[in-house]
């Protein structure tokens, strides 16, 4: 690890200011950034910790919206969202291991947008809104492909607002080594229709399975998915599975999620 400065602002505006210095980078749980620094793939000059900004650490149900502060750990979401949005709490409870959940945050996970991360599926299927220090971004606009988001340089995820669906379920099939999703599906039944988000599978990162959404919106049942399949084209192929296998898993995980809801 190279030398760096470390600052610990207490407010979002102080953090934004600190991030304006050259080579500054936000640090939340450090579960992604610190390993990258240790192997010297990242070498920020200044680390701006977001973990001590009280306005960014909370889980609050506000009517039919669940609001989660950008620096809230997976462990806190797992505990505190269990009543209002159990499917999201269950997603958070299955990220990594206890150490990772006690440090890693929703903001860090979304900003990173790992193609195999869990939260992007929950956010996309929930049709959540990502609130930053300067604007609000809809989930459909936020994720822009592997490790790419709508965030600008120095922009901070301050809060995520989840419309709470009528019912939802996250089905995760783990990659045996990393235990990230090899492929996972988040299915949400909203009053306006169903949303299905698949993570881990695609070379373009998290995506919505539109055909399945249409089918489930007209008939929310496993049989509605009969004959539907995710196209293997564009799916990730690696040591842990072919693109055909991932496409197949997307179907299986979606069906299981639907079966668990109905």
């Amino acid at each position: 690890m190279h030398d760096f400065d470390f600052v610990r602002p207490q407010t979002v505006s102080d953090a934004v200011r600190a991030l304006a210095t050259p080579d500054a980078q936000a640090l939340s749980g450090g579960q992604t950034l610190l390993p990258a620094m240790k192997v010297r793939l990242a070498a920020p000059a200044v680390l701006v910790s977001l973990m001590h900004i009280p306005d960014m650490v909370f889980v609050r149900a506000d009517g039919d919206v669940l609001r989660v502060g950008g620096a809230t750990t997976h462990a806190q979401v797992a505990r505190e969202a269990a009543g209002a949005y159990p499917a999201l709490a269950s997603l958070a409870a299955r990220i990594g291991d206890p150490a990772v959940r006690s440090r890693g945050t929703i903001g860090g996970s979304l900003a990173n947008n790992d193609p195999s991360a869990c939260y992007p599926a929950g956010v996309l299927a929930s049709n959540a809104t990502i609130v930053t220090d300067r604007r609000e971004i809809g989930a459909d606009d936020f994720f822009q492909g592997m490790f790419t988001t709508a965030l600008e340089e120095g922009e901070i995820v301050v809060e995520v607002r989840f419309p709470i669906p009528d019912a939802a379920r996250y089905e995760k099939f783990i990659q045996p080594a990393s235990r990230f999703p090899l492929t996972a599906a988040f299915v949400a039944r909203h009053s306006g229709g169903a949303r299905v988000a698949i993570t881990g599978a695609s070379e373009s990162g998290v995506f919505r399975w539109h055909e399945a959404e249409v089918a489930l919106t007209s008939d929310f049942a496993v049989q509605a998915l009969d004959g539907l399949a995710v196209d293997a084209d564009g799916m990730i192929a690696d040591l842990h599975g072919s693109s055909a296998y991932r496409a197949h898993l997307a179907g299986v995980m979606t069906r299981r999620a639907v079966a668990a809801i109905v």
Partner: protein
Amino acid sequence: MPKDGGIGDSPKRREDVRFLTGTGRYSDDINIYNQVYAYFVRSDVAHGRIAGIDAEAAAAMPGVLRIFTARDFEGVGGIPCGWQITSRDGSVMNEPKHPVLADGKVRHVGDPIAVVVAETLAQARDAAEAVVIDIEDLPAIMDMRAALTPDAPLVHEDMGTNLCYDWGFVEDNRQAVDDAIAHAHHVTTLELRNNRLVANPMEPRVALAEWNAAADEYTLYTTSQNPHVIRLLMGAFVLGIPEHKLRVVAPDVGGGFGSKIFHYAEEAFCTFAAKALRRPVKWVSSRSEAFMSDAHGRDHVTKIELALDENGKFLALRTETLANMGAYLSTFAPSIPTWLHGTLMAGNYTTPLIYVNVKAVFTNTVPVDAYRGAGRPEATYQLERVVDKAAREMGIDPVDLRRRNFITEFPYATPVAVEYDTGDYHATMDKLLALSDHAGFEARAEESRRRGMLRGFGIAHYIEACGIAPSNLVGQLGARAGLYESATVRVNATGSISVMTGSHSHGQGHETTFAQVVGDMIGIDPAQVDIIHGDTARTPMGMGTYGSRSIAVGGSAMVRATEKIIAKAKKIAAHLMEASEHDIELKDGRFTIAGTDRSVAWGDVTLAAYVPHNYPLEEIEPGLEETAFYDPANFTYPSGAYGCEVEVDPQTGKVTVLSFTAADDFGNVINPMIVEGQVHGGLAQGFGQAMMENCAYDADGQLISASYMDYAMPRAADLPMFTVDSTCATPCTHNPLGVKGCGEAGAIGSPPAFVNAVIDALQRGGHDVTHIDMPLTPDRVWEAMQERGVRDA
């Protein structure tokens, strides 16, 4: 009933107090005043010519003492290989040079090219990034078959071939085996790969070397399973340091699984640099470095053919194996696919004719050497898979087919040059079937079927050979070392005992078990006995710990030394009581004149030995300290029956292991709890190999499973509770404790059981899948089901 804390009792592991409270002393816990840090610059390509190394700018960076390259090692020996194999044509194996630092060419990702030594690790690493290395890429030689084609590029040009050796065993059987297979009623053929593994001990390797100018003495602290072997190899063959000037210490070592047997370049480098720089030099491997510099395990590709008669009697067995050596020969690499593999191909069966051919091949990969089981898992896997396949093809129950071929009379001389002294394979099989409720399997399978799952039962019966010996035989087989073990038993004046053993404990619990043996023999509290190991300055020349040899060989040496102690102590006791030594009996720590109530205590005798006022000085020397070297007459042959039950999710290919049962014959058992723990560990590693672990390279020679993000290690939650039994004991006939060894059994016997169970589940589900190469990850199981659809009902 075992004595309290004696042989057969299960006292808790005394070493765990320090391991579990963070007070162990591992190599990295040792820091020497004024030490500096080494950082290795390693090749990031698999194969290439080193066109230039520019270290000038790096050398000028803060804190840098010196940057070393191959040029600094001119006149220094290469890393030696400890075993020479002779090919079928009588020629000795091709043995490439293995320089400490890459010389002219790099041959695998991770091959060390240069070393920066600096005041701090960060400075060394910063400077290492500034070392500019110009490498002209050469085509990577990855596939063993392609490597043996005539126009293949060469890992070592000067050898003119990528073949290390072409070994035939037993060559005289070849024709008879071919004939038997050609005329057999049935021949079952199986082609398989034994997957490459990374050992992954919890503690990465460390080397810390110091040179004492006044005495011209070196000390090397290293993570080794056998410090004396390192002292001999490094001192005599690499650096030319006489042994009395070189001390090698392997303090607490956090697991090895074989990977810490070998002499590594980093050890030689630090020792060399400590003198060159007149500063202690420390190197600590990162986990990433471990993946590309610790010797890997396994990596065999095999075709096996089993010939049977119409009753299922095995007539002949023929195997052809390609064994990956990697880019250089690691210390014991040549012996693993040969003497530790070919000699086991009889398994538990009476197969009269066996021929094993092994071609060892160089590739642009990390060197491959012993890993828990070393050769025996490869043998067992082939055999127990092909037997299962034969059973299916012939419509014979797999348990029954094995039973029809079990060896039942001992001693039994196999056609592959070894003689099993004892065993009772029907007993372990019976025990397995009972403990695993085999009779209830069909009902459980039906219950799974109702849930849409496929349940299967898999079985394997293994033989292993531990405590490779005797030395004169292994010398004939090409070993460049002896395989005895040593122990010094030092009785102190007040009766407490220090045992200096040549064995090395890196997790096995020797400090507990060895003390149990000595305490039991004398009849004193084992707390009075301490076990000292891992330091060439404190222990007699010993060969260390691997191959499940410690209790069988090291324990026997300790017994012999203790017997000498007891014999001498009896003489002293006889003198004290004015009796004949032949009338003296030792029981519960007291020497008694037989048939009388006259006795002296152990402590009276030990005190007399060191304060010899009333002592037979004319007949015996004062003091009570004895050393024994023990060279076994034969291997020991543990065996056992393993069974496991799995459930396959047909939608995802995911396999869940529901139960695992192990019925082992380890001969006599010193500490059943520790033995059970060893079996658990072995089973977990066997599970890892069968289901999860896969060291994979791409076609360019990049290691793609180079971290825990892609190399899947098993965790406790992946495994079921194990049912483990070792009561079917047939004691070894040729060592004093009647022990056989248990360290590797789990890793040897379990992989075929897991795979057989999955194949059984798929077959029962109507999938005509006869084989899947390990690891049986969900994607592989699913792909196999897709390829081989569902049989018509």
